[in-house]
Every structure is written in structure tokens, then in C-alpha cells.
């Protein structure tokens, strides 16, 4: 019977071509949606690599103050650190967790090999403590690094894998791509996905910019950002106190306090909105495709009533007719899906968009599964109608 179905489909290739094309296009829509869903789900399941609970972000605005910002900031950090309720304070670059700011670079090289596109973070000795970073090799920055001959850096495992491969990262010296600067890796953290819950685990490098180091020059144009780990349960009282401390020390600097939990929610909204919009568009496309398939199958059956009657007369059961129509649809779907798979397989093979090959493979399988479900659902009712057609009536209709 399978051979018979293939013969029938091959002999009706002209009329089936459009249907196959529709299935192929639907497969691509579903493939794109699946890539989005699978990659986001995959990322969501990965650890963030830091702890955002009980961490507050203080965006400090010095306004028109012309005094040395670095010195003022150092005093401010000292005061905040001694405030009851505060566990640790760190001065960082503006690309804090869940922020909309980024500082990516591809300046790092190792033995002539260019490094990957990397997010760079300015940190200090307290950052690991504030964010609860998980150091898996070497160590985090401390006072010893002030006297280092080469600026120390800490990298994440993804960066180490991409640039150093299987080599142990700690102690390796990296050179800038213009050859003028060098860094030495002193530690490795496992993961650092600061963008959002759905951000991929991209390469990251942490630089040390400690306020107490004389070598560290800070421009007055820089916007100071502080991250403060507070005792669990701290609330508005501590927030007001921190703002007051800042005002007292700096004489006029303004600080805006947000928790990283709030920032995470804000970022989630921004990330999820286009995803939901895209999902709705995809859903409409799929409904459109489903209605198209449904209509084509319905039309097919009305055109083939005499054939149905004939097959019944030749010994087919009603259920057999239903299965035949469903089978024909599944064979056509398989041909469309195979074509789609062949094209979709180019994405992991060519490494398009930097998405991991297993995500593409999973997405291809998911798209294939969805398209089979879609066609089976669309073919079910027309097939049932075909199964219920009275042979005597349909034979008389021609």
C-alpha cells in the first residue's frame, strides 16, 4: 500500500507540488520558531553564574562636581562598606547584570590566534563577593594584583575554551591584537550570563580596576556604578540611609537605587516582548498554513469522491479510506519535511548565527514533529469525511 501511495503521489506530482511547497515553507517558519524557543529554553536552563538576590545597583550621578571623582568614590565605597546591613560593595563598569549596556571587544589574542567576540567587565577585588561568582580555577583579584607586572584578568570558561582550547588558562599571557598590551589570566569563573535569563553563555573577561590603586586612572566623565550586597531582608530604611550617606560624603552627588531583582524583571519584559510578538506572528502563520492544508485536503476529497466509491467497491473499508488519505498526507508531508530538513541542516553545518549545533538539531526535530502534528490534525477531519462517504452515492456522482 505504501508503494501504491508513492505511485499515486508521484503521478499527481503537479497537484502535490504546491502542497509540498506549502509544507516546506511551514517547516521553515516552525524551524525558525523552534530555534528561538529551543535556544531560549536551553539558555534559561543554564546557570546565570552569579547571584542577583540582595544585590542593589547604585547609579551615582556626580552632576557638575569637579572634584576628583576617583578619590570621592573611594571614600564613598569605604563608607558604604562600613554601613550596617551592607555585606560588600564593588565599583563596576556600567554593563552590570541585566543592564542595557555592553562593552564587547575582540582585542585578545593568544599565540597569534584571535580571540572571540568578548564582553569585558571592569571589576575590583570585591566583585566576586558581591555577585557570588564561582571561581573554578586560579583565584579572584586581590591586593597582590596591584603590584602585578601584567594587568591580571579573570575569564569565564567559554572564553578559555574558545581561545585556549584544552590548555589550562591560569597563568597564560594574552596579547592585544595590536601587540601593545598584555594581560595574564589569574583565574577562571564557570559561567557569567549577565544579559538576561535568556542570554547565551558568551565569552567574558573581567579586568581589575581597584579604586585604591594609584595606577588606576579614572576620568571624571565616567559614570560611577556601585553594586552593593546587602543583608537579606534589607529594605527602604537601608536604601534611604545609603542615599543619605552618598549625599553626606559627596556633597551633592545623586544616587538612584535599584535592586538587581527589579532590573531582572525589567530586562525580562524587554526580552520577552519581541519574543511574544514573534510567537504570535508565527502562530498566525501556522494557523494560516493549517487552514490552507485543511482547505486543500477538503477540496481533494470532494474531487476524489468517485475514486473513494471505487475503492470501497474494490474492497476498501471506510477506515481504510481514512487511513489512505491520512497516509497520502503524511507521505507528502515527509517529502516536504525532508526538503526542509536538507536546507535547515545547512545552518548547523555552516555555523550560522553562532548557535550551537545541538540547538539546531533539536529545532529541526521539533519543527518536523510540529509539522507532522499539524498535518495530521488538518488531515484528520477530511479523512474522516472520506471514510464516511457512502460508496453507492459517490459512484453515482461522477
Amino acid at each position: 500500500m505504501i508503494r501504491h501511495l508513492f505511485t499515486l503521489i508521484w503521478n499527481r506530482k503537479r497537484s502535490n507540488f504546491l502542497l509540498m511547497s506549502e509544507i516546506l515553507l511551514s517547516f521553515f517558519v516552525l524551524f525558525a520558531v523552534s530555534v528561538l524557543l529551543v535556544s531560549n529554553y536551553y539558555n534559561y536552563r543554564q546557570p546565570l553564574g552569579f547571584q542577583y538576590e540582595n544585590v542593589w545597583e547604585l547609579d551615582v550621578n556626580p552632576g557638575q562636581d569637579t572634584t576628583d571623582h576617583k578619590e570621592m568614590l573611594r571614600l564613598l565605597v569605604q563608607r558604604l562598606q562600613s554601613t550596617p546591613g551592607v555585606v560588600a560593595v564593588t565599583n563596576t563598569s556600567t554593563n552590570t547584570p541585566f543592564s542595557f549596556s555592553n562593552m564587547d571587544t575582540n582585542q585578545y589574542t593568544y599565540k597569534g590566534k584571535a580571540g572571540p567576540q568578548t564582553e569585558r567587565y571592569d571589576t575590583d577585588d570585591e566583585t566576586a563577593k558581591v555577585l557570588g561568582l564561582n571561581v573554578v580555577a586560579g583565584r579572584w583579584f586581590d591586593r597582590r594584583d596591584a603590584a602585578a607586572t601584567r594587568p591580571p584578568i579573570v575569564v569565564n570558561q567559554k572564553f578559555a575554551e574558545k581561545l585556549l582550547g584544552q590548555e589550562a588558562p591560569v597563568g597564560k599571557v594574552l596579547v592585544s591584537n595590536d601587540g601593545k598590551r598584555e594581560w595574564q589570566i589569574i583565574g577562571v569563573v564557570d559561567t557569567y550570563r549577565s544579559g538576561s535569563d535568556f542570554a547565551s553563555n558568551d565569552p567574558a573577561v573581567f579586568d581589575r580596576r581597584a579604586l585604591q590603586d594609584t595606577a588606576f586612572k579614572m576620568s571624571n566623565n565616567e559614570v560611577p556604578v556601585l553594586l552593593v550586597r546587602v543583608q537579606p531582608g534589607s529594605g527602604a530604611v537601608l536604601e534611604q540611609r545609603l542615599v543619605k550617606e552618598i549625599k553626606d560624603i559627596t556633597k551633592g552627588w545623586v544616587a538612584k537605587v535599584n535592586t538587581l531583582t527589579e532590573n531582572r524583571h525589567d530586562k525580562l519584559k524587554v526580552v520577552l516582548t519581541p519574543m511574544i510578538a514573534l510567537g504570535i506572528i508565527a502562530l498566525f502563520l501556522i494557523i494560516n498554513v493549517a487552514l490552507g492544508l485543511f482547505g486543500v485536503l477538503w477540496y481533494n476529497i470532494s474531487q476524489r469522491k468517485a475514486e473513494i466509491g471505487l475503492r470501497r467497491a474494490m474492497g476498501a473499508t471506510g477506515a481504510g479510506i481514512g487511513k489512505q488519505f491520512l497516509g497520502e498526507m503524511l507521505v507528502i508531508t515527509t517529502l516536504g519535511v525532508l526538503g526542509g530538513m536538507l536546507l535547515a541542516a545547512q545552518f548547523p553545518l555552516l555555523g550560522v548565527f553562532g548557535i550551537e549545533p545541538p540547538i539546531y538539531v533539536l529545532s529541526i526535530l521539533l519543527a518536523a514533529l510540529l509539522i507532522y502534528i499539524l498535518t495530521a490534525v488538518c488531515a484528520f477531519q477530511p479523512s474522516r469525511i472520506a471514510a464516511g462517504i457512502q460508496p453507492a452515492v459517490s459512484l453515482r456522482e461522477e
Partner: protein
Amino acid sequence: MEPTLTKSPLLTGAPAAILLKNTPMIKLLDIEKVYHTDTIETVALNRVNLTINKGEFVSVMGPSGCGKSTLLSLMGLLDEPTGGTIEIDGRAVTSYSDKELARVRNHKIGFIFQSFHLINDLSVLDNVELPLLYRAGMSGKERRQRAQAALEKVGLIARTKHFPSQLSGGQRQRVAIARALAGAPEIILADEPTGNLDSVMGDEIMDLLLGLNRQEGTTIVMVTHDENMAHKTERLIRFFDGSQVS
């Protein structure tokens, strides 16, 4: 009266079958068929009692709308009677399930239609194989051999790869006959098999059916409007307004 014994080779080359000429093959008992619509009730067949014996060639005549085709549909188990009992080869089939009816149609009955009912997207050979597709356990090779043997029988072995659209009306009807023969049925139900053909082609088809009846002992019931064709058969039954009149 003692039943007449007829011995004939089957088309498939299976051992010769012994047919009992006066044994009923199709028996209709008090058959009624009423078609209902929202407002109208049409009586197509009114308490028909009819027996077709094994190996008989019977023609059915009557004006349009008298119930001939309905009668053939009921005999072919393509439709259910409103009342009465149908027996095929001694078994009442009225209460059979869809699956059992399909099996009886597949194994015992071959159909020939006025408009041929060939599938235009299948080759001649694939069309003839069609009833064998629904026969469980038959290999593709056996199907092909049977279909080729049937096409040989109707003189179309050279046309196996042609499509119906490439054949004349007479050739198409011969393909339809080959399809009916491929399953080696005991009954052939022909609904105006020469209705769409000219007299020469019609005679050719009639000769084929007569040969089949005489040589293979196949029971044939043929609906026709052509008196000449009808008189070539063993028995002529006339219908009028859903009832048998002779």
C-alpha cells in the same frame, strides 16, 4: 431437479471449480430501499424477491429511475437496504460489519461501471491491481502476475504502462473488466457496461462477458437499456417503479 454440474478453469490458473448451476449465489428477500430527504420519501425498491443462481448471466432492464442501479448497489453490498435480507453464497450479509462487507466485496464481487471508473493518475496495470491491494497477504509479485493475466485475457497486455487518458472508450472498459477479473470474483455486477460505447465496441465487451460466463462460470448481473444485449443473456428481469415486473 438435480443441479447441473459445470466444470471450468479459473482465470488465475487455480484448480477447476465445480459450480452448481441451480445453487443460489445472490438472494434478495423482501428487499426495500427508501431514500429520505427532508421533505421527500422516495421508494427505490419495493419488496423485491429475487434469486440469481451460480453461473447465471442475468440482465436487468427497465426505464430510468426504476431502481436498477439501486438493485445492483445492494447486490454489490455498496448500499444497505431499508428492509429485507440479502444472501450472498448462502450467507445473510445484512448484519455484516463494514470490514466484513469489504471483504466479501473484495473476494466475491467484481464491478464494471458504465463510466469505467478508472483512476486517471494510475497506469493500466496499477488500475487492474487495485482490488488486489486490499487483499491481505498477497505479495506485490503475485498482484502483478494476476493483473497481467487479467489484461492478457482482455487483450490489453501491450498497454500495461498506458494511462486511461491514452485509451479509447472500449479499451477503458476492457481495463475495467480486467480489474473486475483480477480478483477472480464469483460474481460480476455490470452497470450498463456498454452504455458509453458504440455498437462495435459494445459487442466486443458483451462477447467478453459472455465468454467469461461460459468459460469461467462467473455469475453476472448486468443492468442495460439495450434489448439486443439483454437478449444475449440467459435471463432477463424487468423492473418498473421499484418492483420486478417479469
